[in-house]
């Protein structure tokens, strides 16, 4: 590589800084349109960065038109052109997506994941994440549970069975916290929880 003057222009460097700062600020917004604007600003900042990377500006890089020593670097221009084309396509797509979001919801804000929040709420309550008939805890202690388990020598046959019938265990000793908590836990699982 020949040594070309690579000292960047202060104006370009400042412009890149401003574009990136504004772009990052807009990316942190909730509205998809603002996020898109932030992306465009940052994309243009990156494009300017390429121009700086190419060294000083020179003449058009066409043999016969500009002396070879005074040509500007055409490679960065090719790369910037590619990046611009890609940004254009993506911009069109995100605009379409924002419009669709506006059609469906009346706004274009990026929403939270409901399932995520549901799992987080369960974790905060320390409630089981799903119903598990096999590991249902019925009594306060193993002794309580043992008293409920069907005894084969019992003879009458209609004794209380194991965890297959969770309702039967609800008659367990008072003070066991688990049965009281159950009805509340079941409600959100129907998917009708309020937003």
């Amino acid at each position, binding site marked *: *590589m*020949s040594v070309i003057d*690579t000292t960047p222009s202060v104006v370009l460097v400042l412009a890149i800084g401003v574009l990136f700062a504004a772009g990052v600020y807009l*990316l942190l917004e909730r509205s*998809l349109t603002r*996020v898109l604007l932030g*992306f465009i600003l*940052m*994309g243009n900042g*990156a494009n300017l*960065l*390429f121009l*700086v*990377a*190419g060294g000083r500006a020179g003449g058009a*890089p066409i043999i016969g038109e500009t002396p*070879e*020593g005074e*040509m500007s*670097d*055409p*490679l*960065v*221009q*090719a*790369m910037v*052109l*590619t*990046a611009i*084309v*890609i940004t254009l*396509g*993506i911009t069109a*797509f*995100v605009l379409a*997506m924002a419009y*669709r*979001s506006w059609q*469906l*919801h009346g706004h274009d804000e*990026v*929403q939270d*994941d409901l*399932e*995520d929040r549901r*799992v987080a709420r*369960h*974790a905060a309550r320390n409630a089981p*994440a*799903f*119903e*598990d*008939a*096999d590991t249902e805890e019925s009594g306060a202690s193993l002794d309580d549970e043992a008293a409920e388990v069907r005894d084969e020598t019992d003879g009458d046959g209609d004794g209380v069975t194991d965890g*297959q019938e969770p309702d039967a265990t609800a008659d367990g000793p008072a003070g066991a916290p688990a049965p009281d908590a159950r009805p509340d836990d079941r409600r959100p*699982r129907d998917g009708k929880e309020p937003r």
Partner: protein
Amino acid sequence: MSLTAAALVPLPVVLPLVAAGLALALWRHPRAQRLITVAALALVLAAAVGLLVAADSGPIVVDVGGWAAPVGIDLVADRLSALMLVVSSFVMLCVLLYSLAQGVADGDEEAPVAIYHPTFMVLAAGVFNAFLSGDLFNLYVGFEIFLAASYVLLTLGGTGERIRAGSIYVVVALLSSIVFLVAIALTYAATGTVNLAQLSERYAEIEPGMALTIQLLLLLAFGIKAAIFPLSAWLPDSYPTAPAPVTAVFAGLLTKVGVYAIIRTQTLLFPEGSVVDDVLMWLALLTMVVGILGAVAQNDIKRLLSFTLVSHIGYMIFGIALASEPGMAAAIFYVVHHITVQTTLFLVVGLVERRGGSTSLDRLGGLARLAPGLAILFFIPAMNLAGIPPLSGFLGKVGLLEEGVAQGTPLTWALVVGSVVTSLLTLYAIVKAWNKAFWQTAPVEIPADARLPRGMVGPATALVAFGLALTVVAGPLYAYTERAATTLLDGHTYVDAVFPGDSDRGQGESNEVAEDETGTEPVTGGEDG
């Protein structure tokens, strides 16, 4: 390196792109669309197998358009690229057949919508381009091609839930693209080239601080795509909402393209071990543990699998961070195993959703009795994912653990313990899903007489069989990945192949430029615009 082998290299990129154009033009003829896309992927698979054999005797380099390497773009198929091509093209072919059958079964002749086939082909072209690219900017273009296609596939149909998931996915992907672009710009400013082979020679000469900055920026960009821990939150949010085949191909391939890019840049551009390897170790540990703890908390199979996907990326990063031949070989083997098993599981879960009407563990149950075949299809890849011997997941993990123990630093020991714990927790999460969906009494009545379309079960079965075949041929395959790791880490095979005979030019035409180096030719990136 024969002439025929070189002719195979561009095919994985060209064929899907041509097929995409044809499929778009023939959108009124779904049957023709199906024929073209399946044929294109089958041909790519054949070409990839050819490359796999040919690349074993040295990397195959093609200077696109006859322009010599650092001036023009080069495509390089070495052992790693060829292996990735074979696995990914086979997986994509199976997913395509599955989605075709799904469309036919749902009575929708334009299955699922007319845009699906062309977009799927574009996705394939982008992924294959990323695997073959010997040029940093062309790698970026490959990323953008498959990302743009993935935006469309993820928001297919434009329902509220998919638009929500798509917004998150698109915004995160856009950010990673910008970071990647900035890294390329800095690279060009520091070295004056974007050709990977030339960069490999020049990075050693530039200021270490600048090299470290660029390395971290590249890792950040690829890390977002690969879903490494602090950058992984977008994945379980967005993947589960897409249709089953789309989620399957995303989960199998897109994160692995990120992993591939990390392997390629780490080995080729930054071969000297540094503090970055230690950082990667910590990230690998956190990815594994945080990911699997997330999976344990879920009660939707699709979300659970998305979290295991994040978690198991940690194993591959572990292998890369070990920065030794056995570690890298195990990482490559693990990538191959994980592409297969994760895609299979998502396809099977698509079948489960069809059979049981839901993917929520609260609504499923008793499927082992109702659909025993489906239960087997789920059980085998699930055990493979958890790493039960003798399946391929176990072999990959053992390779990683052995090398971790052999290196014996406190950090690698921590990783070894973390890997084992993660493996156990994976087993726990998977067995929980198995118990709920297949064994427990169904909480909601599931119809007993429904039949699954044979066209959907077929490809899923083929993938399960492929996963088992990975175990059967594990010996030769592992030997292949070891040879791949050797050439990756010896630091000269790749560069010698691109610039034969100690020259600094590839094999194409570049007489004018070779004499006068004042201007760099505008070829790179030009054809992509």
